């Protein structure tokens, strides 16, 4: 295979390397000899540790992505952005209310958003960051929760915001408010917990714990299976 592999020219912080076609930015950096400490987590597009900035030799426009997901292309200029601490308000969720003012109270700076849309253009998950920030301003917690759901907290929106806002923390607050106060609590869950506390299943579990392996196997093989749909 080796002789048929096509090589791609990339520039890591300005220095030229040739790497095999088909690598991601992350594996290309490793191929170049970098051993990652920061900037690498799940390696699968879920954790946001690998926020990356790149442009092309003849195209200065900056682009943003997750290094573990983006495939390298000819003449890419690469750098990684280390994740840095960002403004986060400390709060006790139990003392909050899920109303319009709450978000503004905890993150008053969000009124500074002037709608430049850089955050949305930056988001590697292609979320509508600016729209959810304006939902946050209007106090529409549910919409923020919904629009921001797939956020991996890579930090790129905050890194790029000219007003120094931290959309991902605003979104996190809204999702927690939604989960805690706006989504209806699960009644059957509550009931089951009460039943367990009252000892309803104790005898049955005790019996199962004592049962011989043979007995368990028999019951297991005969157990009734609920359809998946």
């Amino acid at each position: 295979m080796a002789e048929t592999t096509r090589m791609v020219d990339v520039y890591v912080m300005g220095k030229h390397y040739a790497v095999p076609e088909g690598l991601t930015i992350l594996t290309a950096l490793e191929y170049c000899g970098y051993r990652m400490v920061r900037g690498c987590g799940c390696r699968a597009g879920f954790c946001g540790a690998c926020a990356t900035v790149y442009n092309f030799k003849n195209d200065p426009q900056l682009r943003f992505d997750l290094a573990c997901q983006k495939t390298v292309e000819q003449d890419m200029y690469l750098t990684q952005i280390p994740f840095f601490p960002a403004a986060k308000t400390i709060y006790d969720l139990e003392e909050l209310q899920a109303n319009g003012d709450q978000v503004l109270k905890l993150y008053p700076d969000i009124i500074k958003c002037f709608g430049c849309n850089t955050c949305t253009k930056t988001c590697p998950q292609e979320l509508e960051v600016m729209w959810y920030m304006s939902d946050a301003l209007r106090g529409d917690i549910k919409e923020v929760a919904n629009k921001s759901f797939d956020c991996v907290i890579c930090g790129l929106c905050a890194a790029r915001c000219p007003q120094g806002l931290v959309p991902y923390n605003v979104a996190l607050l809204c999702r927690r408010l939604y989960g805690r106060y706006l989504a209806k609590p699960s009644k059957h869950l509550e009931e089951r917990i009460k039943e367990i506390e009252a000892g309803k299943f104790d005898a049955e579990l005790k019996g199962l714990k004592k049962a011989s392996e043979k007995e368990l196997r028999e019951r297991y093989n005969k157990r009734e299976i609920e359809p998946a749909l």
Partner: protein
Amino acid sequence: MYPADMEASVKKVEATREKRLKETLPRLQEAERQPLLEKYHPDYIKASMRELKVGPNKGDRTPLEIADILEGNSRIDPGKVDLSKADYDVDVLVIGCGGSGASAALLARENGAKVLIATKLRLGDANTVGAQAGTQAADRPQDSPAHHYMDTMGGGHFTNIPELVEALVKDAPSAIQWLEKLGVNWDKEPDGTMHELSGGGASRRRLHSARDYTGLEEMRVLRDEVRNRGINYLEFSPAIELIMDDRGQIAGAVLLNLETNELSIVRARAVIIATGGMGRLHIQNFPTTNHYGATADGLVLAYRVGAKLIFMDTMQYHPTGVAHPQQILGQLVTEKVRTLGAQLVNAEGEQFIMPLEPRDMVASAIIRECKERGKGITTPTGEQGVWLDSPMIDVLRGEGTVARELPAMVRQFGRYNINISKEPMLIYPTLHYQNGGIKIDASGATTVPGLFAAGEASGGVHGRNRLIGNSTLDLFVFGRRAGTAAANYVKSAKPGKPTLDRVRRWQAELEQAGLAKSRPITPLLLPNYARQPYDYLADYTKEMLSAGQVKPA
């Protein structure tokens, strides 16, 4: 779009889809199960394991890669590490901050302990964020903890420790509610009813999910709560050795700053190991779904101070790892795809296993299909795989289901121009989970006084094979239990004098067994994927490591 020669097989999958929609393969018979495993499951390849020659599990078999690190040399020279002054002095040290570490820290704190978290990467960079499918809990009226118990035991081939399974199934609903109250956005109906799916080996629908970002959602919330509670944490600071006292109790840990190489000493009355799994050891050269830091460090730390491990000869290979495209090889295709109705199909478009058998069975059947029956599909880079027919989901459950239920999967494959609502996914088993680990009791206590463990690093609750959704459950159940138990333990602990004698004795044992020279320096901390033959700068600093670290020869 797939390359042309794979496309031919895709056509066969499409051609048989309608017929297959009506076809349900039977479950495996009891008599078929063991032979399938013995013949095809990677755990049964004899040459892949060996007996441990030193330590509490001497004589037990474990994969070569794990044996090497368990028998590893310490990273420190005890003679040069000064324990007399501590950089941190706390009640409870939590090592690792995935779901189990965060839960343990929160509960230890809630129970009055002064807590420090030391973690290897960023706070929350862990296997937990990768969990997609969901978390089990028997909370629907047609379900019960007893059904959950049965399923868990059966999945684990009846080897699970009954007390642990009992704790798991009884605590499950309250763990889910704890997260609900912390603001986790569970998938629900408008009236609050949980939207629950079935999973491999489960007899009822009991998977709680948050789209296909379940672990991410759980972790985002817990990490935020750790910050809200003001719990002190150190990032990029893995533990590299545990400290004992002269009474044989845990007394703290030695941490390494991954960037500056500096060591620091934590004195703690209790330590909770929550370091997760081992995927990055690439057992038998399998690719893995695990995060960058999954190098089984916690096992090494605990083993060296005498903690017993359990079920270390059984690894979980997730049946559906990505086989194509190459860029995401080995990454997880969540079981939720099968849960939603997708079948497993060979190159000819035929089903060959009921898709919701427990994981070890499905993985074995896929390996059989490729390696013995020659009905796998070969990719341009020479990987083999079978199809997971995701387009069936929209046919069964209505247009748009794939997009709604599997946004992460759609996004991931979409980057490589594969539309999983319309095209099947090529998959092959991938190294996923450590079924066993540090032996714990129902409070999370290990066999070493003051040492607790929770989550994937611990073992016993899943027996020899874990079911879907039982791991993210285990994190919260045993993380919370370990946090509480550690905080209570501390209240009556009588600390002795910290020493590193245990490390000295360990090294002596290695010398005696003739292993010291041939074994690596561990814990491993990070895999090395860099093409980098020689570290000139590290060589230059050799003299400067007098702070106590050992340098590889």
